[in-house]
């Protein structure tokens, strides 16, 4: 069959594929997700609709009028002034100018600020600067303003932090020491998250974002869940968005639990339930993009995980759709043909409440 559909690989490489190749990749992608997550595959009709989205000849595609969802800001405002490593375009403007530009020139549904490092640990010593900036900006914005960063438990391990590094201990067979180091780091991370969260709540924070929770494994995810619960107990009126870092919680520890539910190996439809239990208001679903498979394969996978997650969720599910996540190619400048196809498919087929 003629290669007639212009599409991309997960690393952004552009290529022509046949209709049968695209259909085959969609089928394989949904089967992969279904097998791993033990969730249903997409129906034939849904796979057909996903094929139609991938095969649309237009450069840019979109949802239909009335189908629009909320786009929650996760550092997008920062990309106006940040550099290449943050996907930023380096315009010399302040945080407030960036936020207001995003709100008023781009029509964003929500905006955000965060520390340039985008981790909570370095926020703690400069919390007074951050709360001052947040308060000043929140007086000028109309759309919801999040404060966002990543829990990022990796920063608590040597040489960046005080705890022994489990990545060094595990290859030496020091299993108990590696588990103890993660438990110690998780406690420190939780306390820092709670400290920063309470300080932000005290100055009227409209929304807190725990982005990429679990990036250092299940103990990282547990610390974020415990922090959400503690902050919600202290400041129930401050909304919290808790996002994940991948389609399953990596079992770096393997035994930690939240509310007696073991976290290692949880897939998104299970992650959302513990996030709900913790008291978060929005769940951020993440599915990694494989760079050596097509966007069609990756997107079919992401939609399969998402569909099951939105079906069981009692809170809104916003999908992480940055570089290398949920079908977005893993590259510095994700192409808008792929980005808009991912947007449309996740909303129409995955029933996302937001992105």
């Amino acid at each position, binding site marked *: 069959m003629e290669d007639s559909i212009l599409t991309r690989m997960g690393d952004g490489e552009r290529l022509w594929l046949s209709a049968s190749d695209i259909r085959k990749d969609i089928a394989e992608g949904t089967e992969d997700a279904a097998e791993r997550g033990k969730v249903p595959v997409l129906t034939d009709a849904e796979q057909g609709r996903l094929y139609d989205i991938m095969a649309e000849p237009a450069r840019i595609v979109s949802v239909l009028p009335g189908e629009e969802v909320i786009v929650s800001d996760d550092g997008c405002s920062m990309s106006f002034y940040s550099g290449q490593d943050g996907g930023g375009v380096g315009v010399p403007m302040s945080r407030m100018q960036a936020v207001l530009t995003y709100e008023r020139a781009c029509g964003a549904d929500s905006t955000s600020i965060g520390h340039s490092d985008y981790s909570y640990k370095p926020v703690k010593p400069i919390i007074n600067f951050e709360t001052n900036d947040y308060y000043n900006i929140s007086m000028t914005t109309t*759309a919801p303003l999040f404060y966002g960063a990543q829990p990022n438990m990796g920063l608590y391990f040597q040489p960046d932090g005080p705890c022994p590094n489990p990545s060094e201990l595990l290859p030496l067979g020091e299993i108990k020491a590696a588990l103890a180091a993660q438990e110690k780091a998780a406690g420190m991370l939780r306390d820092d998250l709670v400290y920063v969260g309470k300080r932000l709540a005290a100055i009227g924070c409209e929304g807190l974002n725990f982005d990429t929770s679990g990036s250092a494994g299940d103990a990282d995810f547990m610390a974020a869940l415990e922090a959400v619960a503690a902050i919600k107990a202290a400041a129930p009126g401050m909304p919290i968005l808790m996002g994940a870092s991948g389609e399953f919680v990596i079992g770096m520890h393997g035994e930690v639990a939240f509310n007696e539910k073991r976290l290692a190996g949880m897939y998104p439809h299970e992650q959302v339930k513990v996030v709900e239990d913790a008291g978060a208001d929005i769940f951020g679903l993440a599915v990694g993009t494989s760079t050596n498979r097509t966007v069609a394969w990756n997107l079919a996978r992401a939609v399969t995980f998402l569909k099951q997650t939105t079906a069981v969720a009692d809170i809104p599910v916003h999908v992480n759709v940055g570089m290398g996540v949920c079908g977005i190619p893993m590259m510095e400048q994700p192409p808008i043909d792929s980005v808009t196809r991912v947007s449309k498919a996740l909303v129409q087929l995955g029933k996302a409440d937001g992105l």
Partner: protein
Amino acid sequence: MHIAHIMASCMGGIRTAGDLVAWMQMSRKMKIDEAKTYVAGKLNIDVMDLTNEEIMRPLREELGIGTVTSVAGGPKGIRAKMKIAELLDINIPSVDLFKSQI
């Protein structure tokens, strides 16, 4: 990239009613359809018109909840959010703090 997402599937923020629907997801954990229905009810418009600039632009000005184009003297920022909290019958933390200081 985020601009592409906004064009493909976003409600439009303060251009339309995107911020209002976002407030309902955040403050009441409403899923998208429930949040849209709630906001449309408060605005007394059809759900389809939540993203209709023709309807939302004058309505936002009339209600004093902030407009995307800058009207001199028109409510923006915390002033607009005070009205939004009232309109949607929700608590917005920054508004609660501001009101406590008046």
